[in-house]
C-alpha cells in the first residue's frame, strides 16, 4: 500500500519538496517533475537535505523536464532514477494512490 508523491516546484524557491519528504512512508515513491526537477541535482545547497529526508523512499526525476532545463544526467544526485512519461504512467499505476504536492 504505497503512495506516489509528485513535486513540481523548485525547492530553492518553495518549501514543498521538504514538506513532501517529511510526510512520506517507507517504500513510497517521489517523482520530481516540471520545476521540481531542480531538487534532483547534486552539489547544491539542498542536496544533503533531499538525500537525508528521502532515505527510505524511491526518488525519480522526469527526463523531458530535465532536458528542457538543460540538466544532463551527469548532474543527477545519486539514487535518483531517470524516467520518461511512460515511466510516470507506470508509477501511477503501480502505487495505490497519487498525492500531488501543489
Amino acid at each position, binding site marked *: *500500500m504505497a*503512495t506516489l508523491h509528485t513535486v513540481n516546484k523548485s525547492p530553492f524557491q518553495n518549501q*514543498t519538496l521538504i514538506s513532501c519528504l517529511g510526510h512520506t*512512508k517507507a517504500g*513510497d515513491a517521489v517523482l520530481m517533475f516540471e520545476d521540481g526537477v531542480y531538487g534532483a541535482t547534486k552539489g547544491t545547497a539542498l542536496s544533503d537535505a533531499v538525500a537525508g529526508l528521502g532515505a527510505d523512499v524511491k526518488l525519480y526525476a522526469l527526463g523531458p523536464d530535465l532536458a528542457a532545463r538543460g540538466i544532463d544526467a551527469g548532474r543527477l544526485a545519486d539514487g535518483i532514477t531517470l524516467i520518461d512519461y511512460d515511466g510516470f504512467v507506470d508509477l501511477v499505476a503501480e502505487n495505490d494512490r497519487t498525492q500531488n*504536492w*501543489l
Partner: protein
Amino acid sequence: MSEIIKKFLYVNRKAPYGTIYAQESLEVVLIGAAFDQDVSVAFLDDGVFQLTKGQDTTAAGLKNFSPTFRALGDYEVTKLYVEQESLDERGLTLDDLQDIQYEDEDDDYAEKPSIIVVSRAEMADVMADQDVILSF
C-alpha cells in the same frame, strides 16, 4: 448517490486570500459532501492559516469565506486534521483557530470538536490511508 464508499482526503497547504485555492477547495469539500463518501480534510503548512479566527476582510475588499468552515459539520464533514508542527512553526496554537464543532448523531447529538490536532507522523499516516487525495 453511489454504492462505492471511498476515503477522500482534501489537502490544504496554502494560506487564504493571497490565492484562491483555499476558497475553491472549500467549494469542492461542500459539493463532495453530497456523495456519501468517507471524507477527511487535512490542514498543514500554510493551510493551517485558513482556520484562524477573527478574519475580517472588509478593509481588504475580499470575500470572507472563513465562516463556512463552521458549517462543515452540517454537511457531515467532521474530520479536520490539523498538523501540530505546522502550527508551532507559525506561532499558532489551537486557541488561535475557530471552534469548529459537529453534532454526533450516534451520541445523542452531543456537540464535538471537528478539529483533530495530529503530529507530522500521524498526518503521514492519515495520508497513507486514503483512496483519493485532492490537493489545493
